[in-house]
């Protein structure tokens, strides 16, 4: 049993996912995207392919979402002039709930993954 880089990644992801859960609720978009991208890179470095694979769809969605954001000069995702339209608002809320579920599951997966790595190595 050794504290490997992969275990470190899992531990970090575990902590960050806890943060993401709150970001998903509060729609702190940019930190969320950055953090998620960050531990995806960590997993890449740690060669945790399965975990990376599980995260790839979300990463791709984030990139797509940010590319197709409304025209704006600053960073950000939500356009103040349209966000109050009920359909867009509903979409964003639904998105938030889905991510919340995903992060919750991911949280336990990372916990499992960390222990598994610690135990197996």
């Amino acid at each position, binding site marked *: 049993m050794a504290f490997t880089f992969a275990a470190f990644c899992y531990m970090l992801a575990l902590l960050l996912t806890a943060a993401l859960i709150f970001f998903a609720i509060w729609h702190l978009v940019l930190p969320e995207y950055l953090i998620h991208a960050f531990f995806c890179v960590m997993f890449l470095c740690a060669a945790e392919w399965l975990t990376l694979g599980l995260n790839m769809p979300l990463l791709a969605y984030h990139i797509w979402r940010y590319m197709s954001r*409304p*025209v*704006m*000069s600053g960073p950000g995702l939500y356009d*103040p*002039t*349209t966000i*109050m*339209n*009920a*359909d867009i*608002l*509903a979409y964003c809320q639904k998105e938030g709930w889905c991510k919340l579920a995903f992060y919750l599951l991911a949280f336990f997966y990372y916990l499992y993954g960390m222990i598994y790595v610690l135990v197996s190595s």
Partner: protein
Amino acid sequence: MSAPAGSPHPAASARIPPKFGGAAASGAAAPAGPAPAPHQQNGPAQNQMQVPSGYGLHHQNYIAPSGHYSQGPGKMTSLPLDTQCGDYYSALYTVPTQNVTVNTVNQQPGAQQMYSRGPPAPHIVGSTLGSFQGAASSASHLHTSASQPYSSFVNHYNSPAMYSANSSVASQGFPSTCGHYAMSTVSNAAYPSVSYPSLPAGDTYGQMFTSQSAPTIRPVKDNSFSGQNTAISHPLPLPPPPSQQHQQQQSLSGYNTLTWSAPGLPSTQDNLIRNHTGSLAVANNNPTITDSLSCPVMQNVHPPKSSPVVSTVLSGSSSTRTPPTANHPVEPVTSVTQPSELLQQKGVDSSSTTSSASPMPNSYDALEGGSYPDMLSSSASSPAPDPAPEPDPASASAPASAAAPVIPQPSKMAKPFGYGYPTLQPGYQNATAPLTSGVQPSNPVYSGFQQYPQYPGVNQLSSSLGGLSLQSSPQPESLRPVNLTQERNILPMTPVWAPVPNLNADLKKLNCSPDSFRCTLTNIPQTQALLNKAKLPLGLLLHPFRDLTQLPVITSNTIVRCRSCRTYINPFVSFIDQRRWKCNLCYRVNDVPEEFMYNPLTRSYGEPHKRPEVQNSTVEFIASSDYMLRPPQPAVYLFVLDVSHNAVEAGYLTILCQSLLENLDKLPGDSRTRIGFMTFDSTIHFYNLQEGLSQPQMLIVSDIDDVFLPTPDSLLVNLYESKELIKDLLNALPNMFTNTRETHSALGPALQAAFKLMSPTGGRVSVFQTQLPSLGAGLLQSREDPNQRSSTKVVQHLGPATDFYKKLALDCSGQQTAVDLFLLSSQYSDLASLACMSKYSAGCIYYYPSFHYTHNPSQAEKLQKDLKRYLTRKIGFEAVMRIRCTKGLSMHTFHGNFFVRSTDLLSLANINPDAGFAVQLSIEESLTDTSLVCFQTALLYTSSKGERRIRVHTLCLPVVSSLADVYAGVDVQAAICLLANMAVDRSISSSLSDARDALVNAVVDSLSAYGSTVSNLQHSALMAPSSLKLFPLYVLALLKQKAFRTGTSTRLDDRVYAMCQIKSQPLVHLMRMIHPNLYRIDRLTDEGAIHVNDRVVPQPPLQKLSAEKLTREGAFLMDCGSVFYIWVGKGCDNNFIEDVLGYPNFASIPQKMTHLPELDTLSSERARSFITWLRDSRPLSPILHIVKDESPAKAEFFQHLIEDRTEAAFSYYEFLLHVQQQICK
């Protein structure tokens, strides 16, 4: 409040429409206290006005619309008024001081005259304080007898026009007093005529009266103007044209002729009212009044309470003369005026302002006609295009029918005042409703779908059930299947009116005018599933700040609202008992506040359901300080002008400055009005106009990267204090930059500076731009590829290139500043980006392609006329609009120019009368437990006079459970406008071709849904319900509209501008833009003509938009909303060319002709009056193009013939086949 609810009685007056059975009215009135003796003498006149029973009033209101045309004379008066309003103002300003002595002199004669008119005698007898005439029947007698005096009143009202004409007469304020006195006395007199059965109550009331009379006086003042007018203008006041009187009597309420005559008045009222509140001191010094507005009003302000009243009463005729004394605060003001009456007379709805019982002087308010003097009310008031006149026989019969349902009620109402509420609104109580309706089964009016009287009985029943459909009945006309491919003339000969919701008659009468509020489905489906099945869009089309010719304005201490959802009380709430009402949106049961129990109209206590708030679906409240986040802002106007080489070359500055100079006095605002100017090219120029300078000072800021305000305090100056400097500047501006070589335009920095300048106050920024901004923040690049203009594939760049303008607009919106954009550009200037500055700050956008003051005179003229409207129209500041709807419905997308602050709150920095909005709705919960749904818009704004006001519209619609009923209730025009709005969104967020496909699919889906569910006829044909028969035609028109067309060369800016218009135009104007009206005008006859303003306006039938209708022998007028075309055929009758166009033959007509000469021939007169009538119906003046058959310009004309085939688009028939093909797939 110290005053008990009952106390206000004396003040409030109700009028009895002469027509109605007096009995009901009198009965209702009974509880009201006896009038103080003084009133009695004049009584007769008033009686008529007092219609206590709410029902009766409504009647009247609704009847009026049908009568519209016939009521021409009223309208006639209106027009002059409009024009003269301006005069009135100016007069006020110029002639501030008035000699008291003069006044008195004038007053006396006037008063006497007035008095003489009203035959007081009969009523006086009955009128002594204690005596009550018990019988209801007596009331009716009174009415008839009273009619005479009433007519005299009418005179006063009509007179304003005359007054304004004469406005130059120096002593306006004072003469008015006499007029007002006369009025007031009359009103008092009216009292006695109404019989009050209840003696005991009477005593107390009478006493109350005297004491309270004082507060009421104010409203009178308003009227005083009108009164004064008569006095001044007519030495012999009497001769009112009989017809007018007639109208007035009839029109007590809502939509009647009174309104027409009114417009001049309201403004005066406004001023007056304001003054009252503010200035007791002012009142005393009449002669010295610097504030011109205030002066006339003042005299009345200090009515010493109680005692004087009595004396006047006794004096009888002499009482009228007393008014002069009123001017002096010292003397007790004798007349007890009843504000409400006055108001009513003005043509305000039956509901007058009801004030709370509070004794304080301010509590009362005059009704405002709704139109400020300064606005060009002509558009609104001009009768012509308004749908009000209903051609349908059914509607015509409406009055009669409407009367019928009331029958059972009068008896209830007649019961003395302790009687409970049950009668309230039969519509609500399902149990009772059927009964009432059942009583008059034969009544045609109630037929479920209004236009079609055929199946009255059944439909009526169903309507009485609140819209629950009885399908066993034969189909209503709107459901009659129409075979679209077989029907050659699908377009009706007369304009299409909004369908009337299938409600019972009482609710129908109360419902909001379709001009202000329309729903795409007048029968709301019960569930979202049903709506999905129908495949029709559900949404609302709003025109909330429309110029109204009359509008009940209500001042009361408490604005009654639902405690949980904050809905304003409205005609569709139900009263559970006398003390509680049930909200019609959230169903919460609320208490009726004590103040609300008293009805100033009827002077009765315990009848909250007769308050004006509950009798009118469109009302305006004067809001208290609870509705303010800060003190009401003054009117602030900032003009930001492009003076680069391009702009100077185009020459718009001359026109703008000229218009401003002409309309400077008519800018809406009070004495705090502020104005400022900025110009920019590659630098930004500010103008210091501080009072005291000898000439305007120009300050140049060349640091456009970090703009600052050189002298923040003196750039926005008081309009009146610095008027001379402003005029100097306006005179100098056009020539200041004639030699400029600066071609750059730093629009972005200029806007930033404007924002800084405006942010402390908020207000309106008018930006004039002539080219692509090329410097500093917000610079834009040309994005248009001219080769792509007629591309059929992708149209790019419909969205903004930068968010600079959007962010700026949001900042402005946060500071209550709206940015209006005038784009006068000959080249591409990226309107898609620039428009954002107005879109999100609730501004408006005007676009004049290829503007040049000499090369393009018609555009120049259009700019001039538009500016006149723009500068003088009514304006509301720091507004918010909230739309509420019955629980179960929810709004999801809004269309228009605004910023959405929360899911149902629109933030509007400015609101103008030409702004329209659309809302998409969805049904969240099933509506099975309700039979009616309601929508309420509340627009809270600060008027240009610094008053916080709330305008509330409420619309009520039935809920249906069957698909057939949903189809029967489609309002096809509203649906098209909503679809157009959605398509604009779609083309920006997705692509133009997507939007076009969606439009076609809307037709395909709805028709196929109809075919597969409702109609069980053969499926080979393309069937549509009659209510939807125009749907494919309108969609085709949309597809060929500039905004959505492909394949035809369309400049990007033109396309974007058309989209902006779709988003921000109200329905009436948008419909003309989408589907122009075509008339043949070479053979105009008087057949079916209407009378407007002393002119005969021919009403030629509509032609369908196809070249097949154009004959070479004819001349045709096409009304495209903002453009008129007259197409003259080659073989057109020379008589027509000579008589109307003023040329001997076809060949000699010039290529460019934009005016019809004023020729003294019958046909010329007819043509011109028809065109003028069309023109008056819209806010922006259209350009007229006369197109010869062979001129190159005819392509412009022919592109509007949307039923014909073009290279790029289907003809109507082909389109139908295409749709049919899609359905069969």
